[in-house]
């Protein structure tokens, strides 16, 4: 060591550093080696695959999209029959996945928030029950929960003839959950339009109210007026068209129900399993978010004269949401990814349809690739949205 130092002081710097001591050149060599190894591995797998495909005479490519699928799909939001193409079958799968994810996410957020708040309740009984719920649900695999609910629905529920009828118009049997819905009427379209108009009006109103408050300091009851507009406009449309009240009530005909809206046992089991499982995680996130706000914040807000509602809306929620939203989105994503377990209980989600496609066409690589691309698309869009949201909501630090 010491000799080295004297050496270098004696001889000054060597004219040329050997390239293996130069960090920049060494880094380039490392990267070339790693890339080369990854490339060789990729080439090895690729050539093996090509050889195997040729031997088994499987055509590659997405030509199978246009062929006839010739399998039925149990439930579909768009018209579909076995005579349609694989592309349409896969589209049905994507729509079914989105349906489960959308409904599931809404229910999960509601249930998770309730349980999370319940866990912090000063009521001992409620807090303990919430804790037991969270611990139990988190520690049981979601697939097992799905099997459990599915087996409950087809083993323990009665046949449609003896269907349980907890509320008028709602029937629960081993054929699923059937309930009454309003008979379709042209005014429903008008109501949807009225609701959209209401959304636009609320957006404009919020902008105007904020400007006015900045200019004059006068607050405007935006929240109440918004609720009035959002619900009032569709209600007015409904009343103007004569308030149609006819309901489409399910009736028992033969062995099954006719009319009303039917949720299949698979859908109900999938939804129940996913919601109960994910809500336990969401509850913990909500609890952490609420606990992250120090008591001083609430006291400070009250001491400057804000009302309880304002404390919640202006002080607590904006801060709690900043803590809650990022882990919450990853849970939503988990729910979407876990909805692939539908394949195990026979709900035709995207993976289930893609699996059938793989089995029928033998296009394993394209099928698995499609599954990965679709879910990757979901998660990348979500994380892009998250980054945007985080940037908007991040604390502005000086």
């Amino acid at each position, binding site marked *: 060591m010491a000799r080295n130092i004297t050496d270098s002081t004696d001889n000054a710097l060597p004219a040329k550093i050997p390239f293996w001591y130069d960090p920049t050149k060494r880094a380039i060599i490392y990267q070339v080696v790693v*890339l080369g190894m990854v490339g060789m591995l990729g080439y090895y797998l690729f050539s093996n695959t090509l050889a195997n495909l040729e031997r088994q005479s499987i055509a590659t490519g997405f030509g199978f999209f246009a062929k006839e699928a010739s399998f039925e799909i149990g439930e579909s939001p768009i018209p579909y029959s076995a005579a349609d193409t694989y592309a349409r079958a896969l589209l049905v799968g994507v729509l079914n996945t989105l349906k489960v994810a959308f409904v599931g996410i809404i229910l999960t957020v509601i249930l998770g928030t309730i349980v999370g708040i319940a866990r912090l309740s000063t009521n001992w*009984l409620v807090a303990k029950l919430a804790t037991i719920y969270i611990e139990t649900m988190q520690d049981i695999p979601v697939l*097992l929960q799905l099997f*459990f609910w599915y087996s409950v629905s087809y*083993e323990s529920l009665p046949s449609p003839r003896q269907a349980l009828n907890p509320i008028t118009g709602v029937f629960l049997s081993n054929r699923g959950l059937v309930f009454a819905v309003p008979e379709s009427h042209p005014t429903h379209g008008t109501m949807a339009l009225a609701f959209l108009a209401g959304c636009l009006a609320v957006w404009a109103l919020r902008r105007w109210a904020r400007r006015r408050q900045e200019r004059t300091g006068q607050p405007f009851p935006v929240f109440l007026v918004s609720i009035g507009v959002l619900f009032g406009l569709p209600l007015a449309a409904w009343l103007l068209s004569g308030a149609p009240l006819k309901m489409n009530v399910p009736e028992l005909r033969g062995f099954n129900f006719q009319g009303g809206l039917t949720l299949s046992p698979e859908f109900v089991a999938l939804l129940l399993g996913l919601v109960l499982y994910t809500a336990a995680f969401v509850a913990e996130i909500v609890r952490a978010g609420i606990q992250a706000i120090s008591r001083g914040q609430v006291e400070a807000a009250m001491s400057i004269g804000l009302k309880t509602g304002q404390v919640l809306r202006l002080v607590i929620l904006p801060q709690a949401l900043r803590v809650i939203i990022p882990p919450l989105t990853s849970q939503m994503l988990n729910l979407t990814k876990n909805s692939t377990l539908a394949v195990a209980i026979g709900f035709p989600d995207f993976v289930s349809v893609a699996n059938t496609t793989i089995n029928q066409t033998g296009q394993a690589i394209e099928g*698995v690739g499609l*599954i990965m691309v679709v879910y990757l698309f979901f998660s990348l869009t979500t994380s892009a949205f998250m980054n945007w949201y985080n940037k908007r909501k991040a604390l502005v630090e000086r």
Partner: protein
Amino acid sequence: MVDSQQRTQSEELKPPVTRVKVIGWIRANLFNSVFNSFLTIVTLYGLWQIVPPLVRWAFIDSSWNTTGKACRAAGGACWSVVTKNLRFILFGFYPYDLQWRPLLGMIILVTLLLLSRNRRYWKKSLGYAWLVGLFSMGLLLRGGLFGLSPVESAKWSGLPLTLLLSIFGLTAAYPLGVVLALGRQSRMPAIKSLSIVYIETIRGVPLISLLFMSSVMFPLFLPEGITINNILRAQVAIILFTAAYIAEVVRGGLQAISRGQYEAAESLGLNYYQKMRLIILPQALKIVIPPSVGILISAFKDTSLVVIIGLYDLLKTTQATLSDPKWMGFSVEAYIFIALIYFVGCFSMSNFSRRLEQELYRGT
């Protein structure tokens, strides 16, 4: 005199009955406001509606060691489906006479897990003990050495398979995860972007798609004539999947180490490997032990997904039992039993990780 007077006074001034003991506790915790009183009453009513029938079903009317027919006659819960098929549910198709081997392997693993809970045993020897334990678990399952008769992997099933996939999965994924985490922190653009692409892709897709890949695509990747059995293929998928999650956890640990540590190591003249091995990783890996236990819990739960590609893990052996006409219709009881197994495993691990977290934070 003064003393006794004081005592009598304090005895006279007891707090009101409604503030102490049982009544006081009930007032403070169940009826402290109008809304809470209402909530308590509603909850109690709900429990009264649910719990007694449940207890009646699960314990009073239940049958514990009868045939399926007798169960149907009794009407209550049929725990016989578990007791009569216990060995099949736990060990599946493993040869009946040799089932002591996986049992012994599981006892070794559980003992090691229990030992690892105590921080006094955290030494190098524990690491070697784990290696020996994992090796002997594999040896016991596989046989073929030391006079143990070989058992082909197609017969490995039940709880040993679940434990094997999750614990071996985590052990093998850890080094890969650490390498990926270091790669993601690297200053070399090619290595950094490769790591990021790998981690984000794996984390963005569901485990199911990797398992499908292992069951339908792996055979295409391999040269002609070479086949890998499906347990190993699933194991590889689980390792690749878990490694991405471990990488993110380890990255958190690396970022938590202050810059000064890196700079101090560099100023001592340590090169990259020495710096990481001697200074950074020992500290970073210690911080990430609690979240790593969280990953072990998820891996333990997620191995149940191998059901979908047809491996006989704990969940699948249960379903196989339930497809027997003699025991058809008792799914709820059987599922509750294995839910209990999963719950005990996950709950003890998560409790351990929570305790450890408190200890580690207090320690530093």
